[in-house]
């Protein structure tokens, strides 16, 4: 329990960015705050950092290692903060950027020049930019800038590392590499870290724990496995990967597709948990027409349309697809293999 957030609410005028959020960030873990824009994830991160202040309330508190940090500014909280757009100092080179947090120390914390050099050299090595210390931010690629921003945040030996959409401004390939690198770095230095993202794939791949936020509330928290396979709400199910919505009843092992009679419910099925048959099987399938087949990629993505013009997305392995080999316009029968039904209705 290294960071505790207790009953935190934040409003901007009439708008509630965070609604009574409580959360514990465990020690040494890499935690993702995941949610769509406007879910309050960045606000929560900024409140943890001390860049924003939550609404005053005697029941609210933020504790670092058991001690309240209310009223502490970001510098006192000793957190490393990595900004979405890096926020590097443009008139300083890489070395000066990383050294900044050490050079501004005064009084008993003052650091001799030699010691600063050692620390910065160490960090440059850590971010694998040993030879670029004289470069200016404008002369670096996006991925390099992000790593410099990270090294700069780490230079002050923070208790926690907070990252705001760390890969948001990078292109797909660089993002993947940097993600893997950050994961390795985390395993190496074991610093409790929180990062904000709207990209579910990033959260699933990188985090030890995921906190899913929606409209200022925590929808679910758990390991990537838990939130993906056991979503507690339709929102989480929908947000973590694509999902199909059917209406009907579940009777035993089979699904009766029926949106007309009373008692039908929304049924959620992931695209890879639907099977397709050219003939209607005994268990009863939903008749659909093939609209589009995307063969490029590790799986085959198929777009179907049912009689009420609703779109259904299915993912099949290439092997399975090759057995039936549907063409566009063919009629196929969709049979869900695994369904999820939530008590609470949520429309997508």
């Amino acid at each position, binding site marked *: 329990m290294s960071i505790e957030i207790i009953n935190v609410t934040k409003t901007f005028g009439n708008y509630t960015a965070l609604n009574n959020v409580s959360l514990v960030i465990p020690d040494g873990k890499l935690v993702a705050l995941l949610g769509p824009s406007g879910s309050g994830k960045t606000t929560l991160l900024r409140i943890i*950092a001390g*860049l924003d202040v939550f609404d005053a309330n005697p029941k609210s508190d933020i504790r670092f290692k058991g001690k309240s940090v209310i009223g502490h*500014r*970001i*510098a006192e909280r000793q*957190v*490393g*903060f990595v*900004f*979405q*757009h890096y*926020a*590097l*100092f*443009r*008139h300083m080179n890489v070395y000066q950027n990383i050294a*900044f*947090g050490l050079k*501004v*120390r005064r009084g008993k914390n003052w650091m001799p020049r030699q010691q600063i050099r050692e620390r910065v050299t160490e960090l440059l090595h850590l971010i694998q930019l040993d030879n670029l210390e004289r470069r200016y931010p404008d002369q670096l690629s996006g991925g390099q800038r992000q790593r410099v921003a990270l090294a*700069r*945040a780490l*230079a*002050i030996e923070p208790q926690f590392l907070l990252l705001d959409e760390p890969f948001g401004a990078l292109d797909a390939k660089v993002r993947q590499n940097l993600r893997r690198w950050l994961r390795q770095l985390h395993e190496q230095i074991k610093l409790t870290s929180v990062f904000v993202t709207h990209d579910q794939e990033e959260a699933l791949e990188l985090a030890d724990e995921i906190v899913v936020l929606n409209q200022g509330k925590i929808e679910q928290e758990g390991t990537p496995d838990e939130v993906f396979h056991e979503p507690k709400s339709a929102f989480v199910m929908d947000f973590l990967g694509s999902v199909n919505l059917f209406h009907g009843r579940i009777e035993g092992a089979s699904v009766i597709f029926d949106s007309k009679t009373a008692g039908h419910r929304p049924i959620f099925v992931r695209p890879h948990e639907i099977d397709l048959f050219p003939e209607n099987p005994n268990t009863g399938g939903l008749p659909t027409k093939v609209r589009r087949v995307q063969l490029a990629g590790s799986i085959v993505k198929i777009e179907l349309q049912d009689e009420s013009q609703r779109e259904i997305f299915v993912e099949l392995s290439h092997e399975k697809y090759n057995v039936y080999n549907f063409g566009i316009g063919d009629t196929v029968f969709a049979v869900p293999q695994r369904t999820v039904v939530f008590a609470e209705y949520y429309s997508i």
Partner: protein
Amino acid sequence: MRLPGFRLTFGFTVTYLSLVVLIPLSLLVWHTFNLTFTDFINTVTSRQVVASYRLTFTATLLAALTNAVFGFMLAWSLVRYRFPGRRFIDAIVDIPFAMPTAVSGIALTTLCANTGWVGYYAEKYLGWQLAYTPTGVYIALTFIGLPFVVRTLQPALEDLDKDVEEAAEALGATRFQTFRRILFPAVLPALLTGFTLAFARALGEYGSVVFIAGNIPFSTEITSLLIYTKLEEFEYPKATAIALVMLVASFFSMLFINLIQWYTSKNN
């Protein structure tokens, strides 16, 4: 890649520059050749003229420096704070731009003369005479230069990234350290540009100065005034001779400031 249209653009640039700048300036040199070398030296180094150079350059430099400091503060307040009347003050900054210089000159003289609102108290309590002294010249030059600094700094200050300031704060920098090491260096090139513009404007200023200066020989005569006086006396070659010296001097001042600017922006 070669951009098309280079010849046309270059040709146009050279023609325009020649018409507007180079031809008038070469006439300046041409006219000066009507003087013998001795006459030229005597004209440009006469005690009265030398006194005017000293006044012009000192007052201009001081005025531009004052504007750099207070213009910075003004631009800072206008950009960073929200207060009632901000837009009004913002509009007022343009007045020295918009007002005919003679009007500014007369207004300032009225204000600073020992019967004026400011001049009266300055003399009574501080013993300072403002109008008809070098101080008056300085006041006029400060007045006309202010908008240059404010208007060049404003966009630069608005462009400052909130993130960058927060980053400095997160790294433990105090507000002063953040200002001195992050914000100030970021707007320094703009500040230098504003300073240069204010300096250049003040160097050649005539209208607003002549009223408040009183034009006392050896004391409050600016160089532009001497040139004008020579013209009125139909001493064209002498007028152009003084103008030529001013031209060369301002060229080197500008060159010097530009070198500083180049040096600072190189590190940006």
